[in-house]
């Protein structure tokens, strides 16, 4: 049955479905070893937890998070060491690490509310290419920001701002019922814009506060090395995001050097 049939007179023979199908698929093939790069590709996918077809089951289109067990041991060790320096109990579940193919530069977020978690987003190749100083600064940044954001003054500020947003909602409703929707909308918009601006300022303040903590934990020189390495990796080290100082700003504050210094390679990297 597994014999190949390549007879020239096949079409003259009586029709045999079994033979046709067996010929279509062919005999069992000899083992087909793949190159070592194939394993490397697979290994990359094991790390990145890239998605593959899963039998038609429905999955919410949310980014997949790495579980605690998936976080590379080197990253877990680094966080444990930083937590020890910061006199904070190290809980492995506090770190969520995600490797993404489309991400160009590593980013970190520390939670502001609820359970203290650090979300680390890394490019796929970062695990192998990232230096210890960069990793330490990233992890310490996430940890320090989540600590700073929980300070009573910042929490009070956020509560007040939430109250302002509520007030804006109430005013909008009131003006709407009094047939003055445009006035109500303008006031609500102004209030919300002010809240967004104040939140932005608060987030920057938290970020700078956190940098001070990082220097206390890791020492100024390693932090500078890490920040410079991150700036070198970044495509736009001067770019500011909402609530986030640029890397150049952070370097200026922490290391006392400016962008010109970096461009002239006058960094503090040893």
């Amino acid at each position, binding site marked *: 049955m*597994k014999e*190949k049939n*390549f007879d*020239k007179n*096949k*079409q003259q023979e009586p*029709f045999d*479905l079994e033979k*046709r*199908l*067996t*010929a*279509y*698929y*062919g005999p*069992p*093939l*000899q*083992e*087909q*070893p*793949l190159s070592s790069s*194939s*394993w490397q*590709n*697979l*290994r990359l*996918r*094991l790390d990145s937890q*890239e998605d*593959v*077809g*899963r*039998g*038609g089951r429905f999955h919410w289109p949310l980014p997949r998070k790495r579980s605690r*067990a*998936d976080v590379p041991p080197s990253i877990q060790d680094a966080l444990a060491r930083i937590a020890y320096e910061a006199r904070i109990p190290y809980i492995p579940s506090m770190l969520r690490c995600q490797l993404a193919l489309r991400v160009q530069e590593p980013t970190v977020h520390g939670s502001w509310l609820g359970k203290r978690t650090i979300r680390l987003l890394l490019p796929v190749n970062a695990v192998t290419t990232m230096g210890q100083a960069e990793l330490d600064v990233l992890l310490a940044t996430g940890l320090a920001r989540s600590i700073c954001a929980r300070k009573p003054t910042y929490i009070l500020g956020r509560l007040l701002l939430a109250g302002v947003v509520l007030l804006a909602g109430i005013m909008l409703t009131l003006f709407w019922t009094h047939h003055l929707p445009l006035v109500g909308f303008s006031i609500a918009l102004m209030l919300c814009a002010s809240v967004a601006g104040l939140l932005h300022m608060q987030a920057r303040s938290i970020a700078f506060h956190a940098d001070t903590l990082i220097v206390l934990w890791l020492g100024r020189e390693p932090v500078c090395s890490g920040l410079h390495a991150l700036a070198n990796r970044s495509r736009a080290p001067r770019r500011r995001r909402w609530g986030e100082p640029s890397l150049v700003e952070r370097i200026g504050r922490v290391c006392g050097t400016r962008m010109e210094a970096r461009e002239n390679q006058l960094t503090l990297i040893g």
Partner: protein
Amino acid sequence: MATCETELIESATHGDQEAFRHLWEAHHAAAMAAALRLCHQRALAEEITQGAFLLAWRGLPRFQKGSPFRPWLMRILYRHALDTMEKQRTYLQPLSLDVVLESEVPLSLDSHMEQADLQEQVALREEVQHALAQLNAEQRKVIALRYGADLTEVDIAQVLGWPVGTVKSRLNRARERLRVLLNDGGR
């Protein structure tokens, strides 16, 4: 060997990629051969093989301790191959001489087939492929596993998670349909 494999599986279950690499080295060539026989395209077969190992890596915590690794892996591979082929509609892609040569390199070298023989082979395959494209997905799956993986009806039932009776009836219906389609095509 079995004990060694059990240890490797145990380590890989706990996230040891080095242990999983040993499992890959021991089984990937057989998996690749099985995938290539099913889909006839080397690049797709490699993608299927990698995907199957990725699924196996994720499924290791559910692996039944003490049972052999390869049959489990092959069940994953077959399921994944069939899903991938359906998703990519490989049955609708035209066969070329290159594909036949690519999928059966040893055969073409050993038997010294001439160009005309190969072309005839491609034509016959195209005819079967065209008929397979007219079956429904379930029928295509049972045919692929029966003739492309040489599985018994019981094994097919295990791979696809269907009752054996369902496999038998779908296989019979698929054969009947193919007989009609290929007979009509041959005339």
